[in-house]
């Protein structure tokens, strides 16, 4: 395959990743919110898994800030899981900060390029 074809297909896959990014971030935010409302409801695992997948894919599609912020969020969620009982304010704060950073990275990735 010619390099231009490869780069063209890569760009198409990147567009697909970015198109799905809002849904993935919303899914993750919903899981985090439901976990915070009901820590024993099983949503922590879903949140960790979604954050893990974003951490492992963002930079592959040219958005390293997604990988970095998702990895920070995954770490905060894993710490929360290690502590039994309801999440304390420090953990809630760390998760909230990491989630906001991820949403910011996603918004930046999806913003139209400057004219």
């Amino acid at each position, binding site marked *: 395959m010619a390099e231009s074809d490869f780069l063209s297909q890569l760009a198409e896959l990147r567009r697909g990743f970015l198109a799905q990014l809002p849904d993935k971030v919303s899914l993750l935010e919903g899981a985090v919110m439901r976990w915070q409302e009901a820590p024993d409801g099983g949503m922590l695992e879903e949140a960790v898994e979604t954050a893990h997948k974003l951490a*492992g894919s963002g930079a*592959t599609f040219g958005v390293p800030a997604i990988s970095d912020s998702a990895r920070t969020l995954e770490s905060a969620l894993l710490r929360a899981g290690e502590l039994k009982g309801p999440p304390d304010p420090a953990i809630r704060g760390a998760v909230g900060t990491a989630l906001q950073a991820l949403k910011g990275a996603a918004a930046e990735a999806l913003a139209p390029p400057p004219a």
Partner: protein
Amino acid sequence: MTARPLKKILLVEDEPDIRMVAKLALESVGGFSVEACASGQEALARAETVAPDLVILDVMMPGMDGPATLGALRALPSLGATPVLFMTAKVQPQEIAHYRSLGAIDVVAKPFDPMTLAQAVKAIWEKHVP
């Protein structure tokens, strides 16, 4: 000594976008033939027919994860000695040592760069496979 050439790869990755970009990169940049599977179960069903030179396994997959898939592949007569690479975001030294203890020859870190993935796989192959 020249390593046995790497031609055919069985890639197992549950995330569609990562599966597609890895297959594209390995085929287009590396020139390998890649059969892609979405789950450990699918890989087990197809592995003996594909007869790969190398298996690349995502670690975190729903249902049968990477280590479980590796164990099941090892039980197949024709896949018992096929080199296996894990692809994972968990690449702390103790984590890599753990994957090697399970029988993987090495680990490819996620997120990977599509431009260099094939070269990384080739380098691991040449390092570990006589």
